């Protein structure tokens, strides 16, 4: 089942042009430009501290770019920031829901804050409970759930308002193999439904398994980008890891 019409699936969801962000006096992200499309998964790959989180926080409208322009579903973030936020579902591994509330209550609260009507919200929550197999625990307090259950609930929250774009920041970081497999499958499913997914990870294996488009980010700059196939085969490398290391070497070579 596709959430969006096919005609949408090839259009540009995110257009980032020369995004830079100075944090703590250091340029955490410098001149990052890329496009992410509906119906595709864009993977932002890089080691820790490369600027992945800063970039995604800018995409999720949590941090203003120092310079550069950012268009989300055709709207510029510099005007109507609150409108732009409607199209985005954002999730990081550090995000939580209210511990004293059950997942159901938290979802109801966030849904109402997003301006959804009670009836459609109920329907949506039922669907999410089925999708993420939450029926066992969605009426238990969030604080008492296991970390995998908490993660599923948080993802459900990011999908609550049917965002056209899903931004996921290292969400498999603290999960075991089985839990992350569930989540990776979910990401593919959402892609097939026509959403644009921007995904950051430092695990090359995950990226190889998932991503349609890839951007390598290193020291705040995108050093290589293109479709996954092109990057792996085009550079003559056997795997994504090799391709990444080659790209880093190339940059260093240029610098030297």
């Amino acid at each position: 089942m596709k959430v969006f019409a096919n005609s949408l699936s090839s259009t540009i969801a995110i257009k980032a042009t020369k995004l830079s962000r100075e944090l703590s006096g250091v340029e955490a992200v410098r001149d990052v430009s890329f496009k992410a499309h509906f119906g595709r998964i864009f993977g932002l790959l890089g080691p820790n501290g490369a600027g992945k989180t800063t970039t995604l926080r800018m995409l999720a409208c949590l941090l203003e770019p120092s310079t550069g322009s950012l268009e989300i579903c055709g709207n510029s973030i510099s005007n109507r920031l609150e409108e732009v936020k409607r199209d985005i579902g954002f999730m990081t591994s550090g995000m939580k829901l209210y511990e004293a509330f059950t997942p159901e209550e938290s979802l109801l609260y966030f849904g109402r804050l997003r301006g959804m009507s009670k009836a459609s919200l109920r329907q949506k929550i039922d669907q999410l409970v089925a999708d993420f197999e939450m029926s066992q625990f969605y009426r238990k307090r969030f604080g008492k759930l296991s970390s995998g259950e908490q993660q599923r609930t948080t993802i459900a929250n990011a999908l609550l308002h049917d965002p056209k774009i899903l931004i996921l920041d290292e969400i498999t970081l603290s999960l075991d193999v089985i839990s992350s497999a569930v989540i990776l499958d979910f990401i593919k499913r959402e892609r097939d439904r026509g959403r644009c997914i921007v995904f950051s990870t430092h695990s090359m294996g995950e990226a190889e398994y998932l991503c349609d488009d890839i951007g390598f980010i290193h020291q705040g700059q995108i050093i290589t980008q293109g479709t996954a196939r092109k990057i792996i085969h085009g550079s003559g490398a056997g795997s994504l890891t090799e391709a990444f290391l080659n790209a880093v070497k190339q940059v260093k070579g240029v610098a030297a």
Partner: protein
Amino acid sequence: MKFMRTSYLIFLKELREGFRDPKTILLNYLLPLILYPVLTIWGVEMAAVRIERERSVALSVLVSGKVSEDLRGRISKEKNITLKSLNEELRGKLENAGLNKFLSDVAPASKAESIGALDLEAKTKFRNFLRSEELSILLHCGVRSSTGEKSSGEICSIVYDASDWRSEKAKQSVYDKLESQKRNLYEARMKELGLTSNMLSSLSIGSVNTAEVVRVANSKMGDIVPFLVMTILFLTAIYPALNSTVGERERGTLATLLTLPIFPAQLVTGKTFSVLFFCLAGLTSYLLPPVLFTLVLVLTKGEAGFGALGSYYSPANSPWLLPLILIPAAVLISAMSVCVGFFARKLSEAQGYFSFLLLTPALPLMASASGDLQFDAVTALIPILNIALALKSLVVDPVSLVFVFEMAAANLAAAAFFVGLSVHTIRSEYRGDTALSDIVTLNRKVVRRLSPAFSVLLFTLVMGCVLYANVALQKAPIFALLVFTHIFVMVGGPLAALKYFRISLIDSFNIRAPSKMALAAATLAGICTPLVLMCFLPQFEVPKELSEAMAKRMFPEGGSAFFAFICIALIPAVAEELLFRGPILQGLLRGFPRGWAVLISAFLFGIMHMSALRLPATFLIGIVLGIAVVQSRSVFVGMLIHVLNNGLVVLLVKLAPTMGIKEGENFQVPLIYGLLAFAGLALAVGMFFRDARLLAPNVIPLRDVHEKAA
């Protein structure tokens, strides 16, 4: 409408979350409700018992020397006083304690005044003797020695301990008896001489106490009640505020909340109202018992029991004034707490802020307890202080409804300011600006450039040091004070801070050579500004400290004008420019549009001079200086204007006597010169703007750089 709905949803959620925590509910709301009635009744019973006991307490008076039977009879008429003679046993004890001399000193042969000269050690020993023998006071009477006179009369003295209420009470009643005895003897003597008593005493004295017991008690309550209520307000607001702001941040839910398409203002209002709810709930559970108790006293006119207090009680004000005062106060304190909660990045950091926040009520409470300040039209406008004053006068005197409404408006306005500040904090987090939190925690990895928060904090610290220096160096030579406050505090302080955070000194202080046009404009502005102020501001008199104290210290015997120029014109000009047009203005420019930054820095500059009378003048000078430095991008331009302005004032003070102007008099520049100066000033400002357009845009605030690059 939709705005309110979102806020309302947030409000409801906070309430629900709050009520999910049974421990908090029990400790904050239920326990006081149960405990306080018990405590109140217990306290009142204690008070009643004490009043009864004070009335009937047994007092014993040690009598030595010759006490006339008449006086003895008078004193022992008082039921609770027993007289005890200085028998052999007690005399032996006194001897053992080495107090013989004390006793003879107490009973002087001729003069009652010599009693005061007793030494401290003997007094202490005697006090302990009285206490160990369970005696309240010593009454010593003797015959006044006569020097040739026929009749000499008696002399009585009382030794008592003012720190012991029993002794104090015994002294008072024996003293009264002695007074009436004295009066009787006097009248009898007059009669003997064939005179009426009022023939010799032309003045009779009497006094009437209009305050019933409860009023006296109320005025004492007035010092305690504001303290109690303020403490309760802060304590009940702080924890929900912490929990719903920095607590959410630590638990990771604030991040989720911020991804939602809601405005920061909705978030802040929703949370503030929920904190207000808990604050009022806490206040109610703390105050309900005493209020209900008072109500019972009032309605039953004291017949409901509760010992002796009930019969006296009459409230000074309608109880309905209480919510009218407390609700806006609670709104303000909730908004303050939420604001501080948003400032902090960590719970532990927030706790540090809240310790300071808890000190906020201390100062106004001290001011209100001192009794110098009254709740009136002016003080009602000062937030926090007005709460303390209103509560104090609510207990003691009838309060005008107008002041109460005025106060409510002032506190609500202040609350709106804090809501705005919270919104600003959230927005600046989105913009990635330096947070106050990073500056306070001296996080130099993060604080790498100036910001409004930096400016405000720097100003506060420098002002604090200047105030201390002024007190500490009160008696020092003026030169030392000036050098210390200006060079060490105003320049040294910022210099140290900038060095610590590794912020560029050249950019912060604007150390750049000005253009020739800017220098010309500065000269013009420096001469015209003081003339304009002295012409158009009618309140601008020659400042007293300049004309009197300063003149004496600065011009000793017609002394050196050069020294005066250095002290008044040069040092302050250089130092104040470096501070106010340096890091303070530059920091403000990084968070506010230019106009606002100049206005705020001018206002801070005005406050720094610590004179309400001179505030309009210093504020206006601050604006001129701000415009000059922002446009010319050179601190030297500000210094030039400042030196000229101050120098001209010094010159006028020096010349004032020769121009026939007396000290403290209004010093008014003739209108025609004023108008000319105004035209000159306008021209100078115009030149500054023209100059700015000619300058290459090489050094402009960071925000503009970004806009340009974008």
